[in-house]
């Protein structure tokens, strides 16, 4: 899937607080509106990947939200709100998620909760492998350069102390 690397922060008049590009972790209440806007972006990207091949059960949408929203929120607590920097990489994983969901739906018109569970498991495995590989190649995970490679949104990967 194509991803945009030139996006801008939302306008100041937006009801959703502008997504910060700084790395300062914020408290959970401050992150809640931001994570909801991010989740709209995530769902839109998943939809792009699936296209018109299948529709989604409402329960499947709920499962994706309930399963991954806390993980995204946790990643943002750890690393701050870096969405504008991380967006292209995370939405690329959305494309993978969508493709896997279509595959697990096995030709059905509707992607059900079981298909998204399996797709979610694949994405989490990918996230963990990618994060561990990034850690190994970068050394200190707490450096700014290293956090740029953390694929922690989907799996709450906890770097070793």
């Amino acid at each position, binding site marked *: *899937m*194509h*991803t*945009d690397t*030139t*996006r*801008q*922060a*939302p*306008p100041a008049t*937006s*009801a*959703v607080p502008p*997504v910060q590009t700084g790395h300062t972790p914020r408290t959970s209440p401050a992150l809640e509106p931001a994570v*909801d*806007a991010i*989740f*709209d*972006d995530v*769902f*839109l*990207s*998943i*939809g*792009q*990947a*699936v*296209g*018109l091949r299948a*529709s*989604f059960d*409402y329960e499947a*949408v*709920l499962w*994706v*939200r309930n399963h991954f929203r806390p993980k995204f929120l946790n990643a943002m607590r750890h690393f701050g709100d870096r*969405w*504008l920097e991380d*967006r292209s990489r995370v*939405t690329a994983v959305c*494309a993978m998620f969508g493709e896997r969901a279509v595959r697990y739906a096995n030709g059905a018109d509707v992607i059900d909760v079981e298909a998204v569970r399996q797709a979610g498991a694949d994405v989490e495995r990918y996230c963990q492998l990618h994060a561990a590989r990034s850690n190994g190649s970068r050394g200190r995970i707490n450096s700014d350069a290293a956090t740029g490679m953390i694929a922690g949104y989907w799996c709450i990967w906890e770097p070793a102390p």
Partner: protein
Amino acid sequence: MSVDQIDVMLNDCLLAAGQGIGTEKPVDFDAVVWWRDRYRGFFMRALGRGNSYEADRRRVTAVGRYLGQRALHHAANAASVDLNAARLASHDVETGCQMNAEREGVASAAQPA
């Protein structure tokens, strides 16, 4: 209707919009945020008038897919679906939505759909 339920509806509808756009072009984040801000208010008002998302979901997500298709159309030769394309697509969709609502007698001409 809780705030969380409204957010699930928005997730569901933006998923549908993404389906309508497909992989031909990326979507600017400010376009996503604009859609979110706009339809959050609309959905809250609709539900406040007694509409049921469960009953209306099929129709609402169909409109979401159409919204995405119109946005892709308005993006024309641009590299991405930007805020302007999103706004134009919303205008198309809301005009049609308003006409349907008037036909069905659920909205007056002066009332947003």
